[in-house]
């Protein structure tokens, strides 16, 4: 329990801590169970791991798949499913299977296969976070793997063209979203008032669909028609990740503050310059000493005519 644990995963944008569903699932579970994880987002440096992502490193143990990482956390006594009954634990497994079979193909398609989405959003985003020259190769490989997975699992006869497969997987995904919405109903989380593994998985799969701004967004539009699922994602983001609903992360606030600081500095410099000009004008013999020196912030040119008029 005392061993420090590090998680390497893809970073986030658009108000999410991560864009990658599996990374998001692990991060959410860690927050729910209170596990102290330091999160290292993959950036441009060469030190980041090249294998499967997300990866948990604890002392010498390296674990790579979400299910295994969650098992490891549970063994370390960070268990979010403590209060679930046996039947609810079984339901968790069943719903996770439903997500993987029905929702994941459409998610992969939206991110990696749909040409407009991939070229304008996904590829630049991932390429900017992978060191050159891997950035030329890795996004393409991930895209090919996604297409491969979709075709091998869903692409057999009687669906003979990619557009038929696409129609089928989006239909399955919309049905899956409807089922999840019915199951969630009006409660805050799937099993009562505390979040569990199932909530982590659902959040991990839904949040990227919900938040990332793509050109082609049929799945997002369908999700927005299910208000309880949107509320579910927003609740988790605000309560557990301390991000506002509109998507400004604390780092966003910092940049706004920094900009404000810069502006204030500029204004101060301007006013210093104006003061100097004032002093010069005061020292010159033509002008009588001024009584008021309050007009510092105004532009230098305007002051002298005003002062000539004052008594």
């Amino acid at each position, binding site marked *: 329990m005392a061993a420090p644990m590090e998680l390497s995963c893809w970073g986030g944008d658009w108000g999410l801590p991560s864009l990658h569903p599996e990374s998001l699932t692990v991060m959410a579970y860690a927050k729910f169970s209170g596990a102290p994880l330091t999160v290292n987002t993959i950036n441009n440096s060469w030190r980041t791991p090249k294998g499967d992502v997300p990866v948990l490193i604890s002392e010498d143990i390296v674990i790579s798949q979400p299910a295994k990482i969650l098992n490891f956390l549970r063994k370390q006594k960070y268990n979010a499913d403590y209060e679930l009954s046996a039947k609810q634990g*079984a339901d968790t*497994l069943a719903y996770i*299977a439903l997500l993987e079979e029905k929702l994941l193909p459409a998610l992969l398609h939206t991110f990696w296969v749909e040409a407009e989405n991939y070229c304008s959003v996904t590829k630049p985003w991932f390429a900017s976070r992978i060191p050159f020259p891997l950035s030329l190769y890795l996004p393409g490989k991930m895209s090919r793997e996604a297409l491969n*997975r979709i075709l091998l*699992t869903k692409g057999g006869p*009687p669906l003979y063209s990619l557009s038929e497969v696409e129609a089928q997987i989006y*239909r399955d995904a919309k049905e899956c979203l409807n*089922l999840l919405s019915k199951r969630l*109903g009006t409660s805050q989380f799937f099993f009562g008032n505390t979040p569990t593994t199932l909530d982590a998985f659902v959040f991990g799969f839904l949040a990227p669909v919900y938040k990332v701004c793509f050109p082609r967004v049929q799945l997002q539009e369908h999700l927005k028609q299910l208000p309880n699922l949107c509320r579910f994602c927003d609740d988790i983001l605000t309560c557990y990740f301390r991000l506002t609903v509109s998507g400004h992360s604390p780092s966003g606030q910092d940049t706004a503050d920094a900009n404000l600081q810069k502006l204030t500095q500029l204004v101060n410099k301007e006013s210093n310059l104006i003061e100097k000009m004032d002093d010069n004008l005061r020292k010159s013999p033509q002008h009588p000493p001024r009584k008021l020196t309050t007009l510092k912030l105004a532009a230098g040119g305007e002051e002298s005519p005003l002062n000539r008029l004052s008594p």
Partner: protein
Amino acid sequence: MSLVAEAFMNQLAAAEPWPENAALYQQLKEDQILLSDNASSLAVQAFLQMCNLPVRVVCRANAEYMSPSGKVPFIHVGNQVVSELGPIVQFVKAKGHSLSDGLDEVQKAEMKAYMELVNNMLLTAELYLQWCDDVTVEEITHPRYGSPYPWPLNRILAYQKQWEIRRKMKAIGWAGKSLEQVLEDVDQCCQALSQRLGTQPYFFNKQPTELDALVFGHLFTILTTQLTTDELSEKVKNYGNLTAFCRRIEQQYFEGHDKDNSGTAAPRSAKRSLLR
């Protein structure tokens, strides 16, 4: 298929009642059929029995190639051919018979989730065991799969199918798993099913649904099939309520129809052993 084609098919289906000569096609029982195909076929047979729809089982060596989706079993009803449990359930529903009408929305969601669990874990584990575990492949799968065909066609077809299945396993991430991990996943799945079933007679209390048919098909086949090791059936036998569930459905839906279904319940070749 597209939405229009599906609506059209449903309309055609609804037009006629269930005929007497409906047939279910699968591979040859004695020599050819494999664990996963037998499980799927038994699930469909159980479902049709539960709906009280008569069907006769026809065994053909080329059933896989006759099927519209490439998977067995498929049913030939009137002039329509439908394969796999999901589409068959919808087809039967269009004809007016349904087992899950009495469930509310949340229960239907749960039923679909559990059916996906069985397909995701049990079926994939069966495929892994048959096609990715070298011992089983050598001794059981290759000889059985190509048995109706002469050499070298039997070897070519078996290798082709093996390559296809291994590609799929690699894409979904199961290629890296060892046999112990796969058996552990089967155990987890059975534990979930056992906990969900509890002490009830069926998964949704009094009436059987398509989930019961699917679970029965897979578990019964696992329990009654002799493989190179008994580990898979041992995993299922650990859960008493699941074996009782299988026995109950076997007695209720299959024992009265010995003529049609003698193959499924009675012992046949060395591959099968009685469920006792």
